[in-house]
């Protein structure tokens, strides 16, 4: 479970406010979507959660632990698929994943078992032992997801996971995320794509200009805005249609 309280982060000595005031919760066994236009502060919020950035002010708790107080423990508890999904081109997919398993401190056997498991679930058998040079976006995302989840984390953060994926891979990804949810994990994904949120998320947190504009289930958001479909609700809640077409 993730809780944040009035997170704030600025860059360039306070001149650029990336995250102004973000408060939200994400529950175990649910998929929570951070929805917002480009530049709204979704990635920065994520980066604070996975401890690569320190907030200027505000509180965070992941399963009751403050990421700033014990970053190593938090990193062990989180599975993160960040915006940057670079792989090592000269290593095979399996070697890429095994490297992360080692960095997580897992035993060789456990790593092999987990790789086989994901290879089945994500249908990677045909390319798991190929060098990742020349992989398609879809193949890369699958490898990135596997290496992020190699240590069986309870909480999963994904930053724009469906960026650059075709329809089939997006669908496979969606089924996979739903399975994670059924396993009782806390899944948080950020996106600017309305349909993705509507189809997938139990809770939606709308972020605009570094602030939480609204949050709740799809039904609650419709109610709050008085609109009949989610897209209109979104536009209504953030006050403009900026960034929606991106």
């Amino acid at each position, binding site marked *: 479970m993730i809780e944040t309280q009035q997170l704030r982060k600025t*860059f360039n000595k306070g001149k650029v406010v990336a995250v102004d005031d973000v408060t939200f919760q994400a529950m175990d066994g649910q998929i929570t979507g951070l929805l917002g236009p480009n530049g709204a502060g979704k990635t920065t919020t994520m980066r604070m959660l*996975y*401890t*690569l*950035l320190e907030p200027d002010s505000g509180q965070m708790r992941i399963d009751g632990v403050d990421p700033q107080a014990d970053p*190593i*423990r938090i*990193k*062990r508890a*989180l599975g*993160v*698929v*960040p*915006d*940057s*999904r*670079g*792989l*090592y*081109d*000269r*290593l095979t997919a399996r*070697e890429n994943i095994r*490297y*992360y398993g*080692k*960095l*997580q*401190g897992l035993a060789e056997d456990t790593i092999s078992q987990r790789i086989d498991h994901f290879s089945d679930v994500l249908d990677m058998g045909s390319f798991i032992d190929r060098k990742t040079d020349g992989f398609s976006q879809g193949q890369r995302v699958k490898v*990135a997801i596997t*290496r*992020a989840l190699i240590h069986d984390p309870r909480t999963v953060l994904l930053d724009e996971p469906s960026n650059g994926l075709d329809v089939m891979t997006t669908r496979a990804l969606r089924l996979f995320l739903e399975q994670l949810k059924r396993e009782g994990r806390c899944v948080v994904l950020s996106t600017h794509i309305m349909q993705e949120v509507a189809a997938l998320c139990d809770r939606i947190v709308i972020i605009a200009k570094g602030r939480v504009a609204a949050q709740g289930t799809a039904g609650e958001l419709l109610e709050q805005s008085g609109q009949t479909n989610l897209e209109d609700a979104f536009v209504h809640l953030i006050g403009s249609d900026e960034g929606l077409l991106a």
Partner: protein
Amino acid sequence: MMAVYFKEMLDNFRDRRVVINTLLIGPLIGPVIFVALIGFMANQTTERLQSTLELPVIGAEHAPELVRFLERQGVVIKAPPADPEGAILAEEEEVIVRLSPEFGDAWRDGRPAPVELMVDQSLRYAGTTVSRVRNYLDAYGRQISHLRLQLRGVHPELTRPIQIQIDDLSTPESRGGMVLAFLPYFILITVFVGSMHMAIDTTAGERERKSLEPLLINPMPRWKIMAGKLMATTSFALLTLALGLIAFVVAMGFLPVEEMDMALSLDFRLAALAFLLVAPAALLAASLLTILAAFAKSFREAQSYMGMVIIIPMIPSMWILIDPTRTETWMTLIPLLSQNVLILELVRGEPVNWLWFGLSIGSTSLLALVLAAIAGTLYNRPRFIFTSA
């Protein structure tokens, strides 16, 4: 930490370009250039000394005795070219002797008879030939003056009030050392060449392919990740250094050392000592280049910084080349300079001064560790992690 180390080693060994550049061309380029250069220099000098001297003489008929003397010394007298000045300037001839009609008159009158040597003194390679001609002419002059004095009943020794004798106390090793003045540079450069690609690949490269951010999300202190990378980079530098030294030892075998009358002692024992001496510089180079490369956002940007860094180990070598001074203790405290002077001591065949060795290794290690520690803190700053932040 070891996981990072093994991954980086595997990753870079997979890259054929890296292996060829760092482990083949890197170690070989120094010895090959070096040996080719020295071999060429040595050959040139010996060739000029031993080859028959073909000497164009203008007005040979004015001094038949002199010409005959030269021929007795093995000089082949040639007919002069039509345009002697032109031939010298066009570098067709290195030296031309001109004897004027006054030669005979002056000779008979007992006045110094003029002999003109036409040379271009700006041509350094002609120096050997010119001094050979002068030696022959001097010998002839001495012979005649002795004869003249004897005819007048004077002992020729009287004209030599002093006798100069040079006792060259340089050992063959120390003469070799002069030629080897830029050997330290070639050795030091191997650790920079060896760590360059790896330093870029593990930092700027990691950023360019967007794999740094996910890497740092792993539950490892950032300095450990950096330490693993530095270890891998240093290993590559050491490997390049070792291969370079072996290549040098082998290459030295091809040098015509005996003709040059100097001993270039670089056997495997000295190479091992040199390795010991330069090993701390490998960590130094790895840390320095890693810090620089970490500032760069892309491989290309990093490479442009590297070009300048390669000049750093050159500075002490150049300085020693221009101003060769005795080794003093303070020099052994300065990283890179100390390796320079101590490698020179080694190849000159001087006994090993363990204090100097210790100081050099100690001071270089200290600086290297400071740089490594700085490198270890780099990833605590967000601007080194994100491609755009």
